[in-house]
């Protein structure tokens, strides 16, 4: 084996060098595929229970979160401007497929306003229904009123009875007159008159009961009529009593006539009032008519309003929920009547000066995507600064991203330093010609190794970035040992041994 190698190497050294260089170039091409990994799969075996559980969790409920903090430096953080700023960022983030969910005051407020819009829409339907019903009712009432007004029957019948009554009374007075003139059949005449009077009183009482007691005026009239009726009945009783006591009392007729005249004048007074009332009623009826017309018109209008509302509801996308434009509205949404923050905002509105936005990734998203999204957020925040607001983006993915980028930086720095130190050390401690050759060789080996890692998909982790200095340090040993022995043999020209 070794013999073959030696003969091959002494015969075709140039070919071997070229072949090796070619192989390294091929390997190095794999460097494009090298990945930097900081994820869970670098910490725990992907077959372990713990890892699988975590993957399940991320699958169902999303993975890591980026958190964006807004801090109002000298005022309350919750302003319409800042919400608008958040909303824009949210729109950008939602275009990323790998973003699982975004939680922020914006989301909650939008949800609230969309709920309110729904309620508003529901309310609209109710209002339109209600208006429709009311309109119809009004029309109905109007019609009824109109009908009632044109009738006015009750009053006219009362009037008729009144004049009957008057005639009755006139008859009574005339009777009384007759009574005065005739004295012979006093007793008979008196008792006859008495019974007439009683009849009239009872009639009046009946009339009074016909009055609508709801109407104040009518009630008053009814009362008066009742009074008169009672008086008449009392009078009739007295007359009957007088008739019994015969003609012993000559002035009775006079008194009776007087009394009757009083009643008569009372009645005609009553009739005048009734006439007045009638006029008023007529005016009322006119008013009622007008009112009923008005009501009917209003009813028709309400029905048409209700129809319009129904149409409006049909095109309800004109009532798009959105962010409030007024600070007042916004605060009204977030704080209740007592100025206390609504519980639902607890998670995103930390205190008056601090609010956050949580951007959760899908489960098991690659590091590249996380970096991309956190860069997007960072550059958005940089480009869209708001006055007196401090904004910061943080969270595990952002930290990991920072670790990855400083890993790259650190690796470059370490490589350079390692090479520099080795040049110095080789120069002083390795006393052979071409003493820097091992370093060159080992660098080629490192390049080859990186390429090979890309080909066979071994990622660079926080641990393995230490590989390069170690590799340079350990790998160079082989080259040094080879070159040392070779140089030793070359130097032994005097041949003290062998």
């Amino acid at each position, binding site marked *: 084996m*070794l013999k073959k190698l*030696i003969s091959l*190497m002494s015969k075709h*050294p140039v070919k071997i*060098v070229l*072949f090796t*260089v070619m192989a390294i170039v091929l*390997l190095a091409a794999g460097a494009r595929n090298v990945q930097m*990994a900081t994820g869970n799969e670098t*910490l725990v*075996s992907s077959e372990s229970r*713990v890892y699988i*559980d*975590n993957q399940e*969790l991320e699958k*169902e*409920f999303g993975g890591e979160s980026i*958190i964006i*903090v807004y801090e109002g430096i000298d005022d309350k953080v919750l302003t319409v401007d800042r919400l608008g700023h958040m909303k824009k960022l949210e729109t950008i983030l939602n275009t990323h497929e790998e973003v699982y*969910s975004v939680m922020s005051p914006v989301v909650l407020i939008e*949800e609230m306003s969309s709920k309110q819009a729904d309620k508003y829409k529901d309310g609209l339907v109710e209002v339109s229904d209600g208006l429709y019903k009311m309109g119809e009712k009004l029309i109905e009432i109007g019609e009824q009123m109109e009908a009632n007004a044109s009738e006015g029957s009750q009053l006219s019948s009362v009037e008729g009875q009144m004049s009957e009554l008057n005639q009755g009374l006139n008859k009574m007075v005339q009777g009384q007159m007759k009574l005065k003139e005739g004295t012979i059949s006093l007793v008979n005449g008196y008792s006859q008159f008495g019974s007439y009077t009683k009849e009239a009183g009872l009639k009046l009482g009946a009339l009074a009961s016909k009055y609508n007691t709801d109407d104040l005026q009518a009630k008053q009239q009814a009362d008066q009529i009742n009074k008169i009726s009672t008086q008449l009945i009392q009078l009739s009783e007295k007359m009957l009593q007088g008739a019994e006591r015969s003609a012993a009392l000559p002035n009775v007729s006079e008194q009776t006539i007087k009394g009757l005249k009083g009643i008569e004048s009372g009645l005609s007074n009553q009739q005048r009032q009734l006439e007045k009332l009638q006029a008023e009623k007529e005016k009322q009826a006119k008013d009622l008519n007008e009112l009923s017309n008005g009501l009917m018109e209003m009813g028709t209008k309400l029905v048409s309003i209700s129809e319009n509302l129904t149409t409006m509801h049909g095109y309800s996308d004109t009532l798009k929920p959105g962010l409030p434009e007024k600070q007042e509205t916004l605060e009204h949404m977030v704080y209740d009547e007592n100025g206390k923050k609504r*519980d639902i905002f607890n998670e995103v509105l930390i205190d008056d000066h601090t609010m956050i936005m949580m951007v*959760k990734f899908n489960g098991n998203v690659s590091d590249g995507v996380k970096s991309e999204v956190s860069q997007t957020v960072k550059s958005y925040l940089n480009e869209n600064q708001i006055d007196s607001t401090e904004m910061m983006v*943080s*969270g595990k993915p*952002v*930290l990991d991203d*920072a670790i990855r980028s*400083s890993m790259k930086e*650190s690796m470059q*720095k*370490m490589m350079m*330093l390692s090479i520099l130190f*080795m040049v110095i*050390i*080789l120069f002083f*401690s*390795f006393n052979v010609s*071409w003493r820097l050759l091992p370093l060159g060789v080992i660098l080629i080996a490192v390049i*080859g190794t990186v390429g090979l*890692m890309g080909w066979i998909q*071994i990622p660079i982790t*926080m*641990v*393995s970035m*230490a*590989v390069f200095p*170690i*590799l340079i340090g350990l*790998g160079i*040993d*082989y080259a040094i*040992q080879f*070159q*040392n*022995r*070779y*140089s030793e*043999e*070359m130097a032994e020209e005097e041949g003290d041994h062998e």
Partner: protein
Amino acid sequence: MNKKPQKSLYVTITKMVPAVLTALISTGLGFIALYTSPVPMIQDFGKMLTLGMIVSFIVGLFLLIPILFIRDHHFKSEGNKKKQTRLKAKKGDGFFNWFTKHLITLRWLIVIIAFLSAGFGIWADLKAGVETDVEKFMPQDTQELKDIHRLRDILGSTDSISVVYEADDVSSTEVMDWADEITGRVDREFPETIVESRSITTALRQMNDGELPEPHGIEEKLAEMPEEQKKLMMNEERTKGVITISIKHLEAEELKEFINDLMDFLEAKEIEGIETTVTGKAVLDVEMVTALTTGRYKMTLLGMGLVFLGLLIAYRHPVKAFIPLLPIILIVGWSGAAMSLLDIKYTPLTATLGALIIGIGTEFTILIMERFYEERKKGRNSREAIMITNRKTGKAILASAFTTIGGFTALLISDFVILSNFGLMTLINIFLALFSTIVVMPAILIILDRFVKIRHIRENELAVN
């Protein structure tokens, strides 16, 4: 054309290739121990190192040697450089001779002190702490790190544990009541650790003036909840829900204890039809810590075992296969002592030190041992053989140790705390390896020579005669 390059090539390949190959194999075997670590990034580290060493060997063999040969064979005649080299080398030879002589006389003392101190180191190492807080690994003045600390101040917590519960219908009254009770109770159960616990019931309570809605009202409230919020707590099929427990930033050990307590608590509260799983990033971290602390010794021991087996196959001699392990045991012990003296905690990186020590240490010891037996085979007695070995190979080892140190020094300057600590430890380990190779190894070789020499010497003496 002179024939010297040809001869040098011959000697280099016949003598050095087997020695370096043996060193490579034993280093590789040491690194294989890294694959047994349950922590994937350590496995990757092992793979990468092994690959890197193999590539380095191949490139050294097929690039460096042919280049040297081409230089001397085709282009170069003898220069004065080599004479200078020899002159310088002679100065160094004097020192090595003096040094080795003293070493041989003090061999027992050296060996005893070495093993006692290593024993102390291993004892100290058993008590070493483990650092797994990723935030303590990275550059400490990074803006992002400051940001996350501020975020922690604002929110009270950025770490969380998730309790996933599974049931046929997690929105059923029973499961809701259960989740509600757990969510509320867990805070009171672990008030020192838990900052806040949240589940779908917390959100329902928030929507309902602090009360859990009546069973018939739950559906309605669920429908009212923003989709973006709901899907963080309950899946669409309603077979799984999650209770998110925000906790303080804890050290791995405390975290481990807390998770165990939490699991016990949940088990006690478990009702039929509900299955719970405690998971989340924090649980993964704990798993890693456990893997690091328990896997470390196994890894080192396995590495040593593998190296021993490898050497046994190569040498077919138990003592010869055992000798390279002795300095490794010493370095492991001393390295543990150094870590506890410097108060460096174990990290995923420093946990690999054992394997690295095996890698670096065996290389040196095998080179020394090979040269020693090479000289012994030539018929020299053990003293002479040691003198020559230390003089010739010692120089090369010094050179390569220094270059290795040069390479590793770069780690010290890294912004990553994890790397600079690791760099410091590897530097210390190389010094220790160098020390044990040049100081302790000759003593061991002489002491153990009686177990090895017999056969070889006879063979060689016969050959000489």
